[in-house]
């Protein structure tokens, strides 16, 4: 894991929005996101993340056949593809429909020529990955199309839905009567012993034949005089299950005893279906892997996302399932400078003054780049400006360990700041984004813009325009096109451990030439005006993770953990 940078969304921090949580707290990771997953609400002038946007479904489609499912049938099909899309119950691969071998017994050629286009009738589903096929569980089809519809009838008559309907019928009259008499529901049922309708009375009378003692006012027909008075006091007619679990074992695959027997003698764990493969069943089902049935592929949805506060749309896809474009797309990458962080390999600047080269075998091999405790390292921050206007950026590090009273990290961290970060303190410019064809004379552009803005180019005085600052590690190192690379330095304490991870506040000011937003919406957001009507400032937090610190003693062992 190389160094990384993530952007802060304030949605989790409740009402006092200002500061992000200290980065070492585990929960802080939920507040920081990679830039490409963030949105930007122009109205609220705020970053929005996928945890806080409100999501609306704008269309359903099958991820396999890309069929756009009309909303009306989504419910009936239970969010599943109603066509030919099934996935393997074993490995979740998409199943393909396969025809049977042609009956070429006698004359070598299949007799019916027109059939050969689709194949011979008993069709079944076949997994190309694990070679499961649906004939194993006795599922074959007459036609190779509309398989879901052919299976539908089994699902409609599934035991759990029939039982469910029966349960509804069982409770409905009961609820109706009780709601009539009390305008209340289930809770109040029992307080109206004898106000039940004639239906339930009849039902309970009928049941009383079978079960001694049912019905409070019935004389106890058989035996046990007086002792079973407690039977069924709630005056609810006894529910007669469609399929009783106790009898289930006789009907089905051995039931519970059968399962125990089966489990006692299994040879491999693979014979038993995984929990994930059967936990969706609400009905008692077989444990065996060999009894699993093909799964209909769940639909996906295209969603549009709205800002949670002002309800403006942040992103809205095109309706068609095949399209990957968006009608509206307010992503944060179009508004905030994109930043990347890198630890330069020591070879590139070997004689930097305070820099201690770490033992890095190969340049650029950041995986092996370790931060040793008690040393200091430079790092590079590259900022890319997505706006059509140049921006002035100011960076500052949040002092978390000293000030944060809510810092609830492990005590060894809370004691002291384990490392110190230095960044350029003054603001520096990042040039405007320009389309590629505008780069004929970009050298001029830089000059013009800087002069126009009257910016004070921080690093330029020290002739580091083309980077590779020999002496300098902190400051602007490089500027080209709309990218500015600044250098920072981290000094790691002697007994530091954990990650070099700190929050950084980024505020950028830009001057907008035209008050209107640019053509494609990627340009000037309407932000709060800072001082002059033309200059606007936006501020956001990021977290930078430079990687784990290797403690001094056990140096290499923990490095790769």
């Amino acid at each position, binding site marked *: 894991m190389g160094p990384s940078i993530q952007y802060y969304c304030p949605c989790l921090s409740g009402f006092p929005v200002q500061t992000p949580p200290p980065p070492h*707290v585990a929960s802080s990771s939920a507040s920081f996101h990679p830039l490409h997953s963030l949105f930007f609400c122009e109205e609220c002038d705020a970053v929005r993340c996928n945890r806080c946007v409100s999501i609306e479904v704008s269309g359903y489609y099958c991820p396999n056949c890309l069929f756009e499912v009309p909303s009306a049938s989504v419910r009936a099909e239970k969010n599943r593809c109603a066509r030919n899309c099934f996935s393997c119950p074993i490995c979740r691969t998409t199943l393909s429909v396969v025809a049977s071998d042609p009956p070429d017994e006698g004359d070598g050629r299949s007799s019916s020529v027109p059939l050969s286009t689709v194949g011979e009738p008993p069709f079944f589903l076949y997994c190309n990955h694990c070679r499961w096929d649906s004939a194993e569980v006795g599922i074959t089809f007459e036609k190779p199309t509309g398989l879901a519809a052919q299976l539908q009838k089994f699902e409609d008559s599934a035991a759990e839905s029939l039982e469910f309907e029966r349960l509804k019928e069982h409770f409905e009259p009961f609820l109706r009567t009780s709601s009539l008499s009390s305008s209340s529901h289930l809770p109040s049922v*029992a307080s109206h012993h004898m106000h039940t309708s004639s239906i339930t009375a009849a039902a309970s009378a009928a049941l009383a034949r079978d079960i001694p003692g049912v019905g409070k006012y019935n004389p106890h027909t058989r035996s046990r005089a007086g002792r079973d008075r407690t039977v069924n006091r709630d005056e609810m007619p006894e529910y007669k299950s469609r399929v009783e679990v*106790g009898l289930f074992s006789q009907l089905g695959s051995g039931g519970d005893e059968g399962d125990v027997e089966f489990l*006692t003698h299994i040879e491999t*764990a693979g014979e038993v279906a995984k929990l994930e493969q059967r936990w969706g069943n609400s009905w008692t089902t077989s444990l065996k892997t060999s009894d699993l049935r093909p799964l209909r592929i769940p639909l996906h949805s295209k969603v549009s996302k709205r800002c949670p506060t002002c309800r403006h749309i942040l992103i809205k896809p095109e309706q068609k399932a095949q399209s990957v474009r968006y009608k509206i797309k307010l992503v944060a990458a179009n508004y905030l400078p994109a930043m990347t962080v890198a630890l330069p390999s020591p070879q590139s600047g070997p004689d930097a003054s305070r820099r201690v080269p770490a033992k890095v075998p190969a340049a650029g091999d950041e995986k092996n780049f370790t931060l040793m405790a008690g040393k200091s390292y430079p790092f590079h921050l590259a900022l890319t400006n997505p706006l059509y206007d140049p921006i002035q950026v100011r960076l500052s590090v949040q002092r978390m360990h000293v000030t944060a009273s809510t810092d609830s990290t492990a005590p060894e961290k809370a004691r002291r700041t384990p490392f110190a970060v230095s960044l350029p303190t003054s603001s520096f410019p990042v040039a405007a984004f320009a389309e590629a064809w505008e780069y004929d004379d970009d050298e001029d552009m830089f000059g013009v813009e800087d002069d126009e803005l009257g910016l004070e180019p921080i690093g330029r005085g020290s002739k580091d325009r083309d980077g590779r600052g020999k002496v300098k590690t902190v400051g602007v190192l490089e500027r080209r096109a709309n990218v500015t690379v600044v250098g920072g330095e981290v000094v790691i304490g002697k007994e530091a451990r954990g990650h070099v991870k700190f929050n950084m506040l980024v505020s950028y000011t830009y001057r907008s030439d035209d008050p209107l937003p640019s053509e494609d919406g990627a340009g000037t957001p309407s932000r709060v005006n800072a001082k002059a009507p033309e200059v606007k400032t936006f501020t956001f937090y990021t977290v930078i993770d430079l990687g784990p610190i290797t403690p001094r003693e056990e140096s290499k062992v923990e490095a790769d953990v």
Partner: protein
Amino acid sequence: MSAVPVTPRAKTGSVTPAATPSTARVAGSHILQASPHYTTTRRHSLYGTEDRVVIDPGSLIWKVGFSGEGKARDVFYAEPHNVQSLWSCSRATEPTERAEQDRLLEINLERCMRAVFHHSLLTDPKSRKVILVEHPLLPIYIKDMIARILFNNLQVPSISFASSHLLSLLSVGRITGLVLDSGHLESTVLPIFAARPLFPQLRTTPLAGSRLTSHLRALLLLFGTYLPPPTSLSAAVNVPAANRSMRVPQEILTDALVEEIKTRCCFVSGVLETTNDMRVSSPETGDELVELDVPPSDSAMSESSFSRESVGLESTASSHIASSDYSIISHPQPIGVSESSRGQSHLQVLANMYMRHSTATDLQIRVVPPASQQTGTGRGTLIIPGWIRERAAEVLFEGGDVDESSVAEVILDTLLKVPVDLRKTMASSILVVGGTPMLPGFIPRLHRELIRAIEPPASSRQPPRPGRPAPPQYDRYAPLRPLLSYFAILNNPAPQPPASARAAGNAGKAPAFSPATMAWVGGSLAGSLKTGGVEVAREKWDEADLTQNDDDDDMVMSVPNSEHAPRSIIPDWTRVPISAGAPPAVLPKGLTPAPSPRATVGA
């Protein structure tokens, strides 16, 4: 408690009458503030507002779907990557630590809740009322958190809170019964009479799924065998597997793997019939528990069996070797591991006993070798002795501890608390739900354990943890003995020949819904019957939220944001005021809780 004035209002406002107009208002207010796009997206509310979303949020596994359907649309682990529970029975005491814990929990809950709507159900939360299947011991702060996420982040129109035990009972067509819900963290028994949960009689024990998992892990560490992958492909042929076998490294037993072994390979078989040996098992109450109380009085017995075992071990082991070509390290010296060897030797005694009486086959599972030993080719092999598969669940039936009753004992304890005139009813309509009873053989075994625990303590065979040294015969369940013939588990898949007509009418008569989904099915049923628990509309929440925030503003930052004062508008049975002298059972509103002496479970 601030809840007191509000909750009665929620009750008298009784579930549905208030609900319909309020949803209309929700919709109206939406249109007011929404952009023109809203009307175009409205057509996507394809379920009709009467179909509600039923969420059964477990600490480990969530089940979600739409009301009116016979099975859940989606079931998922709350922590998909490392199968772990979202919350546990304990909570950090140190304030900052606790705040962090809560934040993490809230983040995870939010992730799950958003996944429910956007990933599993693909529906717009703003038009969906929610039925939340709540466990009676779900801590209030978690309940508040869930409500806050649903109302604030997802903006659902209303939430109904319904007791999981009651819903389970509905799913078998009843409104009276004794419901045991054995989930991941706890096994909880709650008697319900005429749709009224008798919360004061609730009893719970931590012997449940997660305890079984840790016990299983301990057993595997001690008695499992691990074959690392052969170092080279030729070694796979040349080196006999026996030479490679070693103790199970701790790292390969990830939560996910143990969970898989538990759900895929384990089962429960009958009571060990060798009566004297049961004695030995009774002190075993937990894997980490180093409570080796092999009593001096009958130590001769257990010692003899032990020594017999240590002798007989060779034979069993060798027979194993004969049957398979691996040398099962079934008798490792309890060395090295930092755990007390006493506990291990105790486990050893157990193992020997179980091993003798198990006929289950040993299983091999391919496992990813630990990172430190990734030298070989391919995957390693974990050999699970058959007796572990068969007897790991014994830990749930071995009670004796005051705080950790066995699953059978917790039912009997509840029965002892239930009013005498209800006992027969309750005993004959026991319903067993939750994930742990999905173990094949669990329910029949539980029935046998109930019978066994209630039998008079003979001198040699006693209910667990009898007064052992001197025999003043503590006969705890004597008052229940007359009920013996009435015990019936509604969803017993293999009912015993019933001892009474009453039991015959009940045992095994429930529909064959799987125990794990019964609460969800009941929620779906309640939703389609347009009933359910106390409903909280978003308006009410927003009102309360506003005042709450005003309060927050007043007391400047004294309350960290995750630690809101308890929401007074979220109903909970623990918040119902104690009715002075009123008859406890017959309250007019049943789904709303019966009066309870408990003040709060917030801690």
